[in-house]
């Protein structure tokens, strides 16, 4: 079992989110992302060409994934590191816990990693008696709150500064009550000093990876805070947890992806820290971890290769799709009910936890297409959500009234003469029912519409019947 999902209750979750005034206030801040991305894209004339090539790099890698994985593994071992493979979340957790135990670890610091969320690593470490400390400021805040991230690059975007102050006062026991913590600056200073001590005390550092480079056996992480670096250079061991599709062939290929990653994510030309790590501390090195382990996770991804969801494996987790999604903007990430929110989550979640649990997500989209428009690796997200809907429809998983309604409509739509007759009749009837008011504030079978907005009434008769009457008269 991975992190517990509430995805099947998406509609209820969305309702809760929409009626949560505090959350709605916090979500306004997420809108800044779209402006920043647009400015960064505008500033780089080669941005669109880079997106095309980023997609090509990923497609090439996926088509040769077995070979690049082999090459990567060889280079890690050559540089003194070790590679472990995990087919699922349970296996990945077990490997990491065993590694921590063999290193005698009592305390683990963690860089931000969505794969670690996917496998529910923190809870597993705690259950094994090993303290896990998230060090990304946003991750640290939500760890104190006992929550999951609500955004893949801004995990605490749903939290207000007042919430953070409360969380810190509760968790940091020796904090004087008189200390002013009303502004983000003061909150950051408090977190910095508390976490500095944790960094220095940790036995093992666990990070994710944005890329794994086959050419050199290198793992790459990208951060703005520097927490990922302090996580990996101070303890005696560095464990990288990454999924199979993070592989890229060469450093040059990584650079292509890095150029679109930061711009798409935060609108920066480059994140502050892009760190390439290859193996453990070298002879003579004055610092750095003595041991370097990479845990490579599959968790259903190898089955996505070669199929209609393969394109999803190009995803570099920038978050642009959710930043630009009207649904995400309205409800935030927690309503999606599992680890990955927004459009990328709507496609990936059913793949990873099953369509029975995750099937609502690909349905809850207006198909506005803005996610695909901004995706740095041009993943056709709406098309893949539609694939999920097709699978549901084929397996009769969509709700029965919906299927019957669609079937009835299709019966008429397949018969043009009957359709013209029926629609004209309907238009006339609805026009009369509208009683010259021009709209309805309630209509049968349209409650989802009329509960929130009026529904325009037909003008009178259908266009087709009027056109026929006219052209008949002319002839």
């Amino acid at each position, binding site marked *: 079992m991975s992190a517990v999902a509430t995805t099947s209750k998406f509609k209820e979750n969305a309702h809760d989110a929409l009626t949560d005034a505090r959350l709605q206030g916090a979500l306004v801040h997420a809108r800044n992302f779209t402006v920043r991305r647009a400015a960064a894209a505008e500033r780089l004339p080669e941005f669109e060409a880079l997106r095309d090539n980023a997609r090509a790099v990923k497609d090439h890698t996926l088509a040769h994934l077995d070979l690049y994985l082999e090459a990567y593994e060889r280079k890690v071992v050559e540089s003194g590191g070790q590679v472990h493979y995990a087919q699922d979340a349970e296996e990945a957790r077990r490997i990491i816990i065993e590694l921590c135990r063999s290193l005698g670890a009592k305390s683990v610091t963690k860089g931000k990693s969505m794969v670690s969320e996917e496998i529910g690593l923190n809870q597993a470490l705690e259950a094994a008696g090993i303290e896990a400390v998230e060090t990304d400021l946003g991750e640290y805040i939500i760890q104190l709150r006992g929550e999951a991230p609500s955004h893949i690059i801004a995990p605490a975007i749903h939290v207000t500064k007042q919430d953070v102050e409360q969380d810190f006062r509760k968790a940091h026991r020796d904090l004087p009550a008189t200390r002013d913590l009303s502004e983000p600056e003061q909150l950051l200073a408090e977190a910095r000093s508390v976490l500095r001590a944790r960094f220095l005390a940790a036995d093992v550092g666990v990070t994710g990876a944005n890329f794994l480079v086959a050419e050199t056996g290198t793992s790459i992480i990208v951060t703005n805070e520097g927490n990922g670096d302090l996580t990996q250079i101070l303890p005696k061991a560095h464990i990288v947890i990454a999924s199979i599709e993070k592989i890229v062939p060469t450093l040059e290929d990584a650079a292509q992806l890095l150029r679109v990653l930061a711009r798409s994510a935060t609108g920066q030309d480059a994140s502050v820290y892009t760190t390439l790590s290859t193996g453990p501390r070298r002879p003579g090195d004055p610092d750095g971890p003595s041991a370097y382990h990479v845990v490579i996770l599959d968790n259903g991804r190898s089955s996505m290769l070669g199929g209609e969801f393969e394109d999803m494996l190009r995803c570099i987790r920038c978050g642009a799709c959710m930043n630009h999604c009207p649904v995400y903007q309205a409800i935030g990430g927690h309503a999606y009910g599992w680890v990955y929110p927004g459009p990328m989550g709507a496609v990936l979640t059913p793949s990873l936890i099953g369509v029975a649990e995750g099937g609502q997500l690909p349905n809850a*989209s207006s198909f506005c297409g*803005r996610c695909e428009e901004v995706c740095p690796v041009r993943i056709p997200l709406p098309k893949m959500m539609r694939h999920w809907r097709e699978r549901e429809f084929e397996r009769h998983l969509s709700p029965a009234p919906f299927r019957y309604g669609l079937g009835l409509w299709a019966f008429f739509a397949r018969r043009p003469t009957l359709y013209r007759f029926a629609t004209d009749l309907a238009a006339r009837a609805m026009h009369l029912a509208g009683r010259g008011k021009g709209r309805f504030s309630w209509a049968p079978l349209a409650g989802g519409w009329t509960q929130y907005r009026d529904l325009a009434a037909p003008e009178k008769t259908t266009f087709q019947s009027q056109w026929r009457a006219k052209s008949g008269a002319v002839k």
Partner: protein
Amino acid sequence: MTATRDGRAPNSRPRVGLFVTCLVDIIRPTVGFAAVKLLEEAGCKVVVPSQTCCGQPAYNAGDRATAKDLAMQAIDAFEDCDYVVAPSGSCGGMLATHYPELFAGEPDMAAKAERFAAKTHELVSFLVDVLGVETVAARYEGTVAYHDSCAGLRELGIKTQPRRLLASVEGLRLVELEEAETCCGFGGMFATKYGELSNAIVSRKSEDIRKTAADTVLAGDLGCLMNMAGKLQREGSPVKARHVAEVLAGMADGPAIGESQGPKQ
């Protein structure tokens, strides 16, 4: 009446099949007649083959078989037309971009769908990009905000064309929405299946509209317009919603979408 870049000889009038779209057909025939007027003024011979729906509701609901049946029906119905024109970016996108995808892997049908797609256009982009229309002879007294409907914008690249023609409408002042490219929350069945979510999105849109000085909101898709109109009206806003074709054709003197159809002024 309509100025074109190259004056077309009458005998070369292209035969344009109007794909009227379900919503225009049933709810607002005025848009269909406005489209006919604009096309005829631009030198086209307009025909309206017997038709039903483009199949998009089925396609987006995952019912590929029905979508394919309706696609074949539409392709056959417009066989003898030089062009197929729809007063909608959404239905236009279905015809022009999704039909070929529907038949991927079936070479004969795919080729047919490709040919059909190549001759299919959304109304306003057809006027500007294909027929070279640069101005219209219309008058509309008012301040207008244009909402870029998603499918038209992203699948068909419709952005400048309606603004260019609107600039030639006498008396019309165009203002921009802060988030003109953000979805209105319609999304077909989405609006009723996820009514509460759709409402949150359209509420933001109506806020954006009300922040401008606009007295009218225009768009190229009746679905989006009914959504925005319905929200504005429920909120008691006096802002009117109209299809852009009504304004361009000078046929915006009747009641706006969802407005009282009492005696015309």
